[in-house]
C-alpha cells in the first residue's frame, strides 16, 4: 500500500488528511514541522509527500528544495491556503499543488497522478 507523508503544522489538517487518505487505502504518516524531515524521509521512504507551504517555523518551499536536492524523483504535492506562493519560482520543483480545502477530491486526484507517473528506466 502506498505510503503518504503529510507535513503540516496544523493538527486538524493532519487529522483530516490522515483519516480521509487512510480510508482511501493509503498508509499515512505525519510530521508537524520540517524538523528532521530529510531524515524522516530516509527512514520511512514515503511514496508521496504532502507539504504545507506556510508553517510557523519552516518555509515549505525551502523544504521542497531540500527534498528535491536529495530525492530527485520523490513526488511532492504542495498544499497551501494561499496561491501567492506561485510567484516564487521554487514552487515549480513540486509535482503538483493544491489549495487547502475540506473537500479532498483534488488532493486525492493529484496523489493518484503522482503515483501513476512513470518514466522508462526509473
Amino acid at each position, binding site marked *: 500500500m502506498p505510503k503518504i507523508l503529510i507535513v503540516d503544522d496544523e493538527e486538524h489538517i493532519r487529522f483530516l488528511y490522515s483519516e480521509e487518505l487512510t480510508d482511501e487505502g493509503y498508509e499515512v504518516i505525519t510530521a508537524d514541522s520540517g524538523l528532521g524531515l530529510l531524515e524522516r524521509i530516509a527512514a520511512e521512504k514515503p511514496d508521496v509527500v504532502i507539504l504545507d507551504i506556510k508553517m510557523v517555523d519552516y518555509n515549505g518551499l525551502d523544504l521542497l528544495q531540500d527534498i*528535491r536536492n536529495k530525492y*530527485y*524523483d520523490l513526488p511532492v504535492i504542495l498544499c497551501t491556503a494561499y496561491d501567492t506562493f506561485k510567484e516564487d*519560482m521554487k514552487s*515549480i520543483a513540486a509535482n503538483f499543488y493544491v489549495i487547502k480545502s475540506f473537500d479532498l477530491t483534488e488532493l486525492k486526484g493529484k496523489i493518484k497522478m503522482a503515483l501513476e507517473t512513470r518514466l522508462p528506466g526509473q
Partner: protein
Amino acid sequence: MTQDWYEENPQRVTEADLVVALPSFREAKLIGYPVTQAARGLRRYFPEQRTVIIDCDNASDDGTKEAFFGADTEGVPRIYLATPPGVRGKGNNFQNLFRKVLELKAKAVVVVDADLKSITPQWIKHLAEPLFSDFGYVAPLYVRHKHDGTITNAVAYPLTRALYGRRVRQPIGGDFGFAGSLAQAFLASPTWTRAVGEFGIDVWMTTLAMVSNQPICQAYMGRPKIHKAKGAGADITPLFSQVVGTIFDLMRQSADYWRRVKWSKPTSIYGFSLGETELPPPVKLNEDQLLAGFRLGGEVHSATWRRVLPPDQMNKLLEIAALPSEEFDFPTQVWAKLLYDFAVAYAREEVPRPDLLNSLIPLYYGKTFSFVRKTAKMSVQQAEEFIENECMVFEETKPYLIERWPA
C-alpha cells in the same frame, strides 16, 4: 556526422575541466561582452578548475574571430573553432564543440549565445555548478514576457513535457550546461539530421538528455534573456520548421520511450540567490498579422490539412476559422490533438515533410493569436499558470497520440 574544422589555439590548451562555448555567426559587434562576462564567471567561481572559452563559429566574415580574441578574458585561455567556409548552422558549430570537448577531456560544458546582452558571471556559475554535483544536463530558467518565446510555449515545452515526462520549461533556451561525458553520446547518436545541424540543435540535445535519463536540473538565471532582436519582419519558417521537424523526427526515433511515459515529473531547480528577479521587457506581437497569417494559411494549405487531420478535427478547425476575430478561440485540446495528428502524418510521410511543416505554421499563428487574446490581461505569473494548464491538457490527450501512432 563528421566534418572538418579550422582551429586557432594560441595558448595551446590540451586539457580542461570546464569549457564555456559560444556558438556564433557574424557576431563581431556583440561577442565581446558575453566572452568577458563568461571569463569573469570562470575566474570568480571556478578558480581551481582548468577552464577555457571556445568560440564555435561558422567561419564568419565580419571579424567575429578578431572580436573574440580581442575581448578581455583576464587570463582565461581561448580557442577558436570554425566550420569549413560555407557550412552554417548552430548545430554544425556544436558538432565541432563535441569533438573538442572529448579531446580536452572536459568534465563540464556551458554554452551561452554569442549575442547575449543580459549575461552576468553568475550565469556561468548557475549553469556549470550542478554539473559538478551529479547533474548531467542543465537547462536555463528565465523569466520571460508572456508573449516572448511563442514556439516554446505553444509547441516545444508542452510537447517535450508530455512526450518525455520531464518538465523543462525552456527546452530550446539556447544557454545550457552538459556533462562532458554527454559529448560522446551526442556525437554517436544516429538521430543527427540537417535540421539538427541548424536550429534543431537545442531541442535535440534536451531530448537526448531526457531519453538517456540524465539527471536534469533547471538553473534559475535571475535576469531575462536579452539578445539581438531578430527584427519585426523576420521569417520564422526556418526556425519553426527545424525545431518542430526535429521534435517530430525524435518522436519517430524514440517512440519506444515516450509510449511508456505517463504524466510528467518536475526537475530540480538550481540557483535562487541572485536577489530580486528583474521583470522581462514587454513583447508586443502583431495580432492582426497573426490572424491574417492563420486565415491566409487556410486558403493555401487546406488541402494538406484535410490529408493530415481526421474529419472531426478538420471540422473543429473549420469552426475555429469561421470565428470573428473578437470571439476567436483556439482550444488547447484541439491544438494538442492537431500537433499529435501532424506528428503522426510526419511519421507516416503522408505528405512531403517540408510541406507538412510549412502547413503547420499558419495553425501556429492561429494558436498564438488565441493565446495572446486569452492572456492579454494576465500578469506574467498568471500566463505561466495558463501554460501549465495547457501542458496538462497535452498530457491528458496523449492517449490519442498513442492510439494513432503507426505500429
